């Protein structure tokens, strides 16, 4: 995108930011509302221009101008001043100065607060506007003239009075008036029409935000109503919007919208009300308007406090801001379900081939108390014996002298060698761990491999080892009556450290003749398991390397079209597929065992979106019979109406769900060495009833993905990959 178009986009986004949104359309609607009074509209625009100029001139990060983060506080200053003063040369000078002041407050405060994980909200606006109010009083020479009434009411009396008239007929009409006016007051408008327009725009942008404004307002309203509090600050300055902003901020913006976040508001909004009436008393003595101060205080305090929790469970802070409560909700729920894996360091099994867990966590023999989260490995034959007859010699045991490999990347921090192997059924309690290697994978994550064969250790302290690298051989030293490998994860680097409950990233469990795929799970006693070995065709087909281009010849309903994808890596090392025709983007991860998509932005009609759905998760090893399952975003399946209804209900329950299943088979008509078939089903469910479903068959060959065939009720699509 051109630089100047980004600047241009930044203008409406500044307006949207005031309501925690980042939609250009929503911003434009707000902008329109602001121009109900020419003075207000123009003032707003002037402040935005000032901020853009400041950013360019002083070389601040333009990204914050393009999304409106640096401008929305100054914009509020402009809107507030435009509503109070008449346009004049002196006014414009003061406005520009105020905008600059606010801009620098914004830059400085946002930087300082972000370092503590806190939002800046409208604090720069409050500081600026109070300084202006207090300062202007001393400069009567400026000749700033106050305004008397609101232009909109002069221009459109019929529409305005019609809406007010309609509202008057409803019971609780006071509340509705107050709601609409408070909503508009966020925007320094004080009338029902502006409130109605903003409410509709907000509803269109985000159902959850809209519902939260109503919810927050009602809590505040009834709090006053039942406690018979002093309602005047609410009525005369319309600062009831503090409840709404607090509700959006804590109900769905900084916290993931959920039933719990709604419960939290039941406590937070009354606190806001108390802050409001308390501060009002103080500020009215200074002749300063309170504006959004109570909202700022409560949100900063709550977000700051929640950051300090010992365990971030229950109420969840939004990790990656999506600027829409719906997205914050869906993505956090689905990310939590799907990508918990990304929070773990990937540990694999420290052996090659099929091994048996002879003792798991909380084992009956030695895995107890401090050392309960460990695994013992050995090798069994078909009859379940770990040795061949007569079983009196170490060499009779299948696992004896087998290679032991590094479970993951890391530094060898401890090597202990020189303990002789025991005779069968003897134990060495003096050196109970036997020959041992400790590897450091990350801060606070170490793995320990024990009972190794003496003098079989191939690494020394300080060595860096790669995942799967041969490091020793299985032995029977220490407290080991028969050859086996003891494997545990621990938080400290010592031999004998207590164990740490930590999952194995990916492994296959043998179930009769087939395998089951386990991700980030804990192997259990008696399971026979193995690491995933990659299949060259699958690994090759999904080696999506940045710079590569994929060209698809697509035939759908008899019509031919083309789609060209390019592969990229962004500044955060995230890989994505970009579809040139539709501008769609699909983020993916290939971690060497799995290929999976993480996110999609763009056109649902694109082939990239279908591909994203049907390759949601792919195992890169050839294990027919393995079933991979995953969740899909329901947004991929349903129309706007059911989705809007789901949006309202989303914090409480989901009636729209999506699921994904993938299996692999041999490709018919193609030799197994040169062709495989992936079959996946993507399903959309309405109250657990399948309503949308599509099947895909991916033909994989030496060249990569040769053909994708996607079939649903409406017909089928065939896409062939050309170069």
């Amino acid at each position, binding site marked *: 995108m051109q630089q100047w178009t980004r600047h241009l986009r930044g203008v409406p986004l500044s307006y949207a930011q005031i309501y925690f949104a980042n939609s250009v359309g929503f911003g434009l609607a707000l902008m329109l509302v602001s121009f109900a009074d020419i003075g207000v509209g123009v003032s707003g625009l002037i402040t935005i221009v000032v901020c853009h100029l400041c950013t360019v001139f002083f070389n601040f990060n333009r990204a914050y101008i393009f999304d409106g983060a640096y401008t929305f506080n100054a914009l509020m200053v402009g809107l507030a001043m435009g509503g109070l003063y008449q346009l004049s040369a002196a006014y414009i000078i003061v406005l520009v100065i105020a905008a600059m002041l606010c801009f620098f407050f914004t830059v400085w405060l946002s930087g300082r607060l972000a370092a503590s994980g806190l939002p800046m909200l409208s604090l720069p606006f409050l500081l600026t506007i109070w300084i202006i109010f207090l300062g202007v009083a001393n400069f009567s020479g400026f000749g700033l003239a106050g305004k008397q009434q609101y232009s909109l009411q002069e221009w459109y009396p019929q529409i305005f009075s019609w809406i007010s008239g309609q509202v008057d007929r409803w019971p609780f009409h006071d509340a509705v008036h107050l709601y609409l006016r408070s909503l508009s007051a966020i925007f320094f408008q004080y009338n029902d029409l502006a409130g109605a327009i903003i409410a509709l725009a907000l509803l269109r942008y985000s159902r959850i935000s809209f519902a939260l404004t109503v919810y927050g307002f009602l809590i505040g309203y009834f709090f006053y109503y039942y406690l018979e509090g002093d309602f005047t600050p609410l009525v005369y300055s319309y600062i009831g919007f503090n409840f709404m902003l607090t509700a959006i901020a804590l109900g769905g913006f900084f916290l993931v919208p959920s039933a719990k976040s709604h419960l939290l508001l039941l406590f937070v909004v009354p606190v806001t009300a108390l802050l409001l009436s308390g501060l009002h008393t103080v500020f009215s003595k200074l002749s300063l308007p309170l504006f959004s101060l109570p909202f700022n205080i409560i949100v900063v305090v709550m977000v700051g406090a929640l950051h300090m929790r010992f365990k971030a469970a229950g109420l969840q802070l939004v990790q990656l801001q999506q600027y829409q409560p719906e997205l914050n909700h869906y993505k956090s729920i689905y990310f939590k379900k799907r990508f918990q894996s990304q929070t773990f360091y990937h540990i694999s099994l420290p052996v*090659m*081939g099929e091994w048996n867990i002879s003792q798991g966590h909380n084992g009956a023999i030695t895995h107890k108390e401090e050392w309960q989260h460990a695994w013992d490995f050995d090798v069994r*034959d*078909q009859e379940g014996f770990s040795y061949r007859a007569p079983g009196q010699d170490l060499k009779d045991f299948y696992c004896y002298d*087998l*290679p032991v490999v590094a479970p993951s990347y890391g530094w060898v921090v401890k090597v202990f060698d020189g303990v002789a192997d025991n005779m069968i059924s003897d134990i060495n309690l003096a050196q109970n761990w036997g020959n041992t290697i400790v590897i450091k994978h990350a801060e606070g994550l170490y793995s320990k491999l024990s009972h190794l064969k003496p003098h079989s250790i191939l690494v020394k302290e300080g060595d860096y080892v790669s995942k799967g690298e041969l490091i020793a051989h299985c032995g029977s030293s220490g407290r080991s009556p028969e050859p086996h490998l003891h494997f545990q994860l621990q938080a400290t680097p010592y031999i004998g450290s207590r164990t740490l409950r930590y999952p194995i990233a990916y492994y296959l469990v043998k179930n009769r003749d087939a395998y089951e795929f386990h991700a980030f799970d804990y192997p259990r006693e008696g399971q026979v398991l193995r690491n995933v*070995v990659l299949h060259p065709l699958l*690994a090759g087909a999904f080696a999506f390397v940045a710079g590569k281009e994929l060209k698809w010849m697509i035939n759908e309903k008899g019509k031919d079209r083309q789609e060209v994808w390019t592969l990229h890596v962004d500044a955060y090392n995230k890989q994505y597929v970009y579809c040139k025709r539709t501008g769609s983007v699909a983020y993916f991860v290939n971690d060497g065992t799995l290929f999976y998509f993480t996110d999609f932005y763009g056109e649902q009609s694109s082939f990239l979106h279908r591909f994203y759905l049907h390759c949601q998760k792919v195992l890169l090893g050839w294990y027919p019979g393995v079933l991979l399952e995953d969740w899909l975003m329901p947004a991929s399946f349903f129309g706007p109406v059911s989705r809007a209804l789901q949006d309202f209900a989303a914090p409480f329950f989901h009636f729209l769900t999506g699921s994904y299943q993938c299996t692999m088979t041999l490709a018919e008509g193609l030799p197994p*060495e040169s062709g495989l078939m992936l079959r996946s089903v993507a399903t959309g469910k309405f109250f657990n009833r399948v309503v949308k479903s599509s099947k895909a068959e991916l033909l994989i060959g030496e060249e990569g993905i040769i053909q994708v065939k996607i079939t649903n009720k409406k017909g089928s699509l065939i896409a062939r990959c050309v170069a």
Partner: protein
Amino acid sequence: MSKKLYERPIIRPLHTGLMNKFGTRTEYAPMTHIEGASVAGLIEQYGSPLFVFSERQIRENIRSARRAFEARYPKVQFAWSYKTNYLNGICNIFHQEGSWAEVVSRMEYDKAKQNGVPPERIIFNGPDKTEDDLRTAIHDGAPIHIDHLDELYRLSELSAETGKRPRVAIRVNMDVGVYPMWDRFGFNYESGQAWDAINKIMTTGKMDLIGLHTHIGTYMLTPSAYGVAAYKMADLAIGIQQKYGKTIDYIDMGGGFASKNTLKGSYLRGTDVVPEISEYAEAICSALLNAGFQNNQLPALYLETGRALIDDAGYLLGTVVANKRLSDGRKATILDVGVNILFTSFWYDHKVSPAQEFGSHTEDTVLYGPLCMNIDVVRENVTLPPLNAGDHIVIHHVGAYNLTQSMQFIAMRPAAVVIDKTGNAHLLKRKETLHDLQHNEMTPEYLNTFNL
């Protein structure tokens, strides 16, 4: 009360100074049953002699071999060496256990295909592949292991003619420090012949070089020799990667692992000196793992183990025809098992057990076959209890090569059965008849009649 065992009296010279502390005794217990099936019953049902295979033993062999390799190397594939034993039933047990097929002739190739092995999983080895054989293999996409330059040139021509790229590997021979060095198959590593062949394949651009193959010998008693071979193969594979940027799919280490048979002239018994499969696995896998392959570019490891997987699962049952004493006083026993069906008796001292109870006395004996040929000697010297005509014996470790190399001579060849896990016998091959011998014979009309 059971009848007391009667054994005919024997006369033994008294040797002093030659006895060891265990005395001379027969090393074997009588073997009355194989996998739960009685020897006498089998002979009664299927005749004598009779080849008997233990399904349990075969499966255990291949599983433990797979376990030994798969626990040491990430990508392992066994291919059943057809020439070792190509009874369809036996082949299919291996295929059921996940083994591919390794063949060395068109006959074996067709047999493997007919057994249902996908052609891409039939490794086509051997020095003699005709133009038609190669054309078929190219068409089917089978991996072809090139033995000599003439074959390479032929493949090059055929790929131009058929318009299909052959999937090829070259067979490499090398000095691995054991004598004799096998250099008659494939291209030599040390002299640069192997590189010459690789360069020719890569520069023609008409073939896909998918693998490297070696077979360093047979009945190899030194696992370290495999380590040397694996290292040299890895060196070639890494060299190909560096020179041509081509990653080889697999390294095929061939076969040659020793079975538990005792070689003639060996002082110790085979079971005592022959390395475990895990020792070969250790040598090969650690050489490959330490060879310096780039991460994720480890080639698959193919193994064509034959003998070591089947030898001890095969038994040959026989019957004593007669006893006699030779001129030098030695005892001789004539069996109905001859060298025509027990070809391996030329290089092994096969373990022989009586199939019925016997007493504590033993005698040095020569075991002769039934052929009217002087060379028909099954064991030149074996310590056995006195056997009577009609007694049965069990010859051990006969699973490899005997059926494929057996020869119809003088008498008809015997039947072969497999004992399943429940002890039931299934016929793999019935006893040959005169019809089998004669059905492709033709007698000219004028030779049909004679008067005596």
